[in-house]
């Protein structure tokens, strides 16, 4: 085996946290190499080091047999390493072409950009308008923009940090196709994921990190998913899920009647949507980004008023968010974008754990010691590492940031939970923990609405399951009556009657 990338003895610590502890890693040319590990295991840090975003304390890196020490991404790209980050690094306010020009690909005009990427798009079609602003694109296309940009620089190693967390099953298949075409050219892909099935599907080899250490690299054919999970957590994982069968659902806690939402350009985002979420049930809605889940979530979050129709919470009109503190609305809200909406990324965790509509309801002075103690116990309860109330979310791994949002929202004793992609970026153990928590809330008679791009999550969590496509929602049906293949098609709009409707 010729190693295309060879990282040896990498050490990196942040204060007292040792993110990478003597990690060595070899990537062969022409392979998809998966990187697995629990939240905070050090995957992103290791790849940031390879990509020059983080400078290691110790250790050496070779790419193609040449020693390199990238001090910034430009160095790494010169050495042949490209990375699509866990949280997109492209500049949202710029157009696609302008983003390419930042990396020296064209001068910002669409024509020059298309010329610069002409070779690449023969294997990976870009399929976006170079004039489109990045933040107007769905996640899957933003990702593709980044992949094409890396390849246009001629990188030999492409690092993808949790790319599938934001994709639907069809998009994942598409991405896998792209990855295969990349490795066919003799390049390599390093692929971070929390989904073991994906590892089995696409990777040839897999490396597992645990608490900052490399616990082993394996050929994918030689190891089962269960063994991989064991390697990740260092003990056997029981198969048990605490979620029992649903009991009879109670009264409607959240009711949407004939809700329509219209976009800025007059397009229809939600089309006469009816939905009922009752006490004691979990309703899960699957949908590809851009099909109305954003306005649906915003309406349930109290951030958007529907253009027509009614939203009822316990049979009364749901007030706007800013009035929740006064009217004692107890809705837990888990937003799609944890870094921009869920968290104050540079403020201490204890403030983050208070930041919400109920903050205004609290009178008088803050008892700081009490708040910090409360924060510490919440962080411990939700398994946030490190459970230090004074650090800021920017010092946490992606999965741990998500846990902070969950800790704030689920600890507020909500009577209704509205969650968008609640387990995005969580490792297997943490995912199960969240599912158990949602099930426990349900069993305690609370109502739960989950909106997710992750089909597995939808089917596993939901008691009733529905699909949102182009702003339309069929009445969610019981989870045990669900046909997985049919839902997958419905999300992508591939069902016959959807096609008829689209044509009509």
């Amino acid at each position: 085996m010729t190693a295309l990338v060879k990282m040896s003895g990498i050490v990196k610590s942040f204060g007292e946290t040792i993110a990478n502890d003597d990690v060595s890693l070899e990537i062969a040319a022409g392979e998809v190499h998966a990187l697995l590990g629990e939240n905070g295991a050090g995957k992103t840090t290791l790849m940031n080091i390879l990509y020059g975003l983080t400078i290691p304390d110790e250790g050496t890196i070779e790419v193609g047999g040449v020693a390199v020490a990238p001090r910034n991404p430009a160095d790494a790209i010169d050495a042949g390493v490209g990375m699509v980050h866990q949280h997109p690094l492209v500049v949202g306010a710029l157009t696609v072409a302008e983003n390419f020009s930042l990396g020296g690909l064209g001068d910002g005009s669409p024509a020059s950009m298309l010329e610069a990427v002409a070779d690449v798009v023969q294997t990976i079609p870009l399929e976006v308008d170079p004039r489109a602003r990045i933040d107007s694109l769905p996640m899957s296309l933003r990702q593709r923009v980044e992949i094409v940009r890396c390849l246009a620089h001629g990188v030999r190693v492409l690092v993808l940090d949790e790319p599938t967390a934001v994709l639907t099953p069809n998009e994942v298949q598409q991405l896998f196709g792209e990855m295969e075409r990349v490795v066919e050219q003799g390049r390599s892909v390093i692929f971070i994921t929390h989904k073991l099935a994906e590892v089995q599907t696409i990777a040839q080899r897999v490396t597992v990190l645990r608490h900052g250490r490399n616990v082993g690299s394996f050929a994918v054919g030689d190891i089962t998913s269960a063994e991989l999970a064991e390697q990740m957590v260092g003990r056997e994982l029981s198969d048990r899920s605490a979620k029992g069968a649903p009991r009879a659902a109670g009264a409607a806690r959240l009711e949407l009647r004939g809700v329509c939402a219209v976009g800025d350009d007059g397009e229809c985002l939600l089309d006469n949507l009816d939905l009922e979420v009752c006490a004691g049930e979990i309703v899960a809605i699957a949908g590809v980004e851009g099909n109305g889940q954003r306005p649906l979530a915003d309406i349930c979050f109290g951030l958007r008023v529907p253009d027509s129709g009614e939203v009822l919470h316990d049979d009364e009109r749901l007030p706007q968010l800013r009035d929740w503190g006064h009217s004692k609305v107890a809705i837990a809200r888990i937003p799609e974008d944890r870094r921009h909406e869920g968290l104050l990324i540079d403020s201490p965790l204890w403030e983050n754990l208070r930041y919400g509509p109920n903050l205004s309801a609290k009178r008088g002075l803050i008892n700081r010691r009490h708040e910090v103690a409360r924060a510490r116990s919440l962080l411990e309860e939700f398994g946030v590492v490190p459970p230090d109330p004074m650090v800021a979310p920017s010092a946490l791994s992606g999965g741990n940031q998500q846990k902070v949002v969950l800790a704030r929202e689920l600890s507020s004793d909500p009577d209704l939970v509205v969650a968008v992609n609640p387990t995005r970026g969580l490792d297997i153990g943490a995912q199960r923990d969240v599912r158990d928590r949602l099930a426990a809330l349900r069993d305690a008679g609370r109502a739960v609405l989950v909106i997710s791009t992750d089909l597995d999550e939808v089917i596993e969590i939901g008691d009733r399951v529905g699909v949102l496509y182009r702003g339309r929602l069929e009445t969610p049906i019981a989870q045990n009556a669900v046909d997985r293949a049919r839902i997958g098609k419905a999300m992508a709009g591939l069902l016959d009657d959807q096609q008829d409707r689209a044509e009509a």
Partner: protein
Amino acid sequence: MTIERFIPALTRGAVALIGTLAVGLVAVLAAGLDPVTTLQAIIDGALGSPYAIRQSLTEAVPVTLTALGVAVAFRAGLFNLGGDGQIYIGALGAVGISLLFPDLTPALLIPFALGVGMLGGLIWGGIAGVLRAKLRLSEIITTIMLNFIAFWIVSYLVHGPLKDPGGSGYPLTREIPEAAQLPVFGDLIPSGAVLMLVAAFCVWLLLERTPTGIKIKGTGSSASASHFAGVSMSRVTILVMAIAGALAGLGGAVSLQGDQYKLGDFFSPGWGFDAVAVALIGRGTAAGTLITGIAVGALRSGIQSAQGTAEVPSSIAQILLAAAVLFVIVGNAEGAGQLVRRSWARTRELASE
């Protein structure tokens, strides 16, 4: 807590101090002065006697009060460049009340005049807040415009209707009655200094111990997360600018009632802009701003007195202040730099809407 935790802060402080002193040295040498005697004269002038200390504190009060307001605004991601205007309006309110009700007892007149001065500043700052929140007008522009308006209102009044008829022809109001004048405790501590300490404590309390403080800092660090949390950006903006204005207005009133006693064209020597530098050096915290404000006051007062004793030009103070801001930002990209970057980002967002 270990000493290591403070080392970055100490190195930053050292960078700022050494850099500033180096610039000061160059300036002093360029002015053809002997550095040792100059320094001696400045220190003597600032701290050498009870009178010097009292002068230093008096000099520190208006700039520090204004800087505390600027700091609060910074934390919310807002630039309050309107300190001077707010100071003038505050002083105008105080002088108006003092001259209108000269027969009230000090116990009534002093707080009345201070309160009206504060209210004037609050309104002046609040206007910028409302314009920002409701009409999306940048507070950087509006506060500067409001400075001009305040200045010309005061200038008109002291040249005309409020001009002291028995005065020597200078554009100044009459002197306020003794009942409105602030006492000095033990011939050493001006009451303004006490107010300054109380204000710093209140700002600390607000920022660090109240839900409102969390919201102020939250809106400053992320508009999107604050929107999601249901925090009303416009309410916070108006509140913060009103607080900033009130503190500056108080600064104006205190300087009028505790130091100058008359209002004129040259009432503020640019405290409003010094305050921005002070808040930056203090990294937007109450304690940092207070300490920096007192130091700047002492420096100014020391140089003023050294002007007489060692012929030190007063512009040295301005040079040192500018150098200190520069070096603090250089030595501390995450603190002061972040305050500026965030506020600037909020302004740019406004422009791109």
